[in-house]
């Protein structure tokens, strides 16, 4: 497999839009548009230009783009400076960079750690 795709199960590039119930088994990278529901059993990376209008589930997530929908992250969620989230978020670990926007409720269970940059 090429270096471009190595270790990544799915890349939703900027040339496509996904509509419906997308379920991934491996790591998922979103650079394009998704509408509906997005879930993966592994890690999710949302690129700076990505637009997601969907409820999202993943083990870990790194978000630099836009999400309108609820995020249910089992372990760690990191929002970069360009991230825009409109929806409720649940994660064990939450990292929010300066400039990130988060409009919604945050739920972190019992083992809570919030880091701010």
């Amino acid at each position: 497999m090429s270096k471009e795709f190595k270790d990544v199960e799915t890349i939703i590039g900027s040339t496509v839009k996904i509509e419906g119930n997308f379920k991934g088994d491996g790591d998922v990278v979103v650079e394009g548009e998704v509408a509906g529901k997005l879930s993966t059993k592994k890690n999710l990376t949302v690129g700076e230009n990505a637009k997601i209008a969907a409820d999202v589930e993943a083990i870990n997530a790194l978000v630099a783009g836009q999400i309108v929908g609820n995020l249910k992250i089992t372990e760690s969620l990191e929002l970069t400076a360009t991230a825009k989230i409109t929806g409720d978020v649940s994660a064990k670990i939450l990292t929010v960079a300066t400039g990130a926007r988060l409009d919604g409720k945050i739920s972190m269970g019992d083992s809570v750690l919030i880091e701010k940059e």
Partner: protein
Amino acid sequence: MYQYIYDGFLSDKKYDKVLTRIENRLLDLGINGKVNKITVLKNFESYIKELVDKKPDVIIIVGNDKTLAKTLNIVADKEIILGIIPIGNENTIADFFGISREEQACDIIAARRIEEIDLGNVNGQYFLSSVEIFGAGTTIICNDSYEIKALENTEKIGIYNLCLKDNMEIMFNPQDKNLEIISTPKISNGFFNFNKNKPLKKSLIRVLKARILSSRENNSVLVDAHKIMKTPAEVTVSNRKLKIIVGKNRKF
């Protein structure tokens, strides 16, 4: 017994020497068999069908990718082992299977290293490598649960069982029962190409089945780079496997 099928283009005299070298090498290795030469007077498909009905254990096709493509749908449903002796430049499939050209392929045939390969199925026809549709606006329904829509900046979308093109730098496992959908972006050569330092990424999505609907510009798909079929196209991985003799240098 080995049955050898020579494609019609090999009747050109310029191939006489190489065919002689191949036949001599097969004789040396003790794997010579019946030679069936296709001529312009014989229909390739009906000739192969007659041959397959005699239930040979091994069929060796001597030719190129097109020879293999023409043979595939006839042998795929049978318990036949397929071998390739590639001649000429259009042999990307033989390259993928690690089969050297011309008489060097005879040693690979003699070694009989056999692999079972997934076969794709598009509208009831088998394919080996790809089903491609060109142009923006294509919709592909995947696993009956979501749709992929190709946006304006899409050059083509391909559904691959195995991928042969070196320029895509992708080699997928043809034994995993998955299909890979790859969306390739348009390359802009315009003066105002603001993204030239940051090329758009291809998309890669693995599916079990897909249904290709027409794009705005196109209502046909290209199968294994040579056969055209109309949309909608139902694409799956078949339960049948192709038994094929491969070389040590195969790319999977």
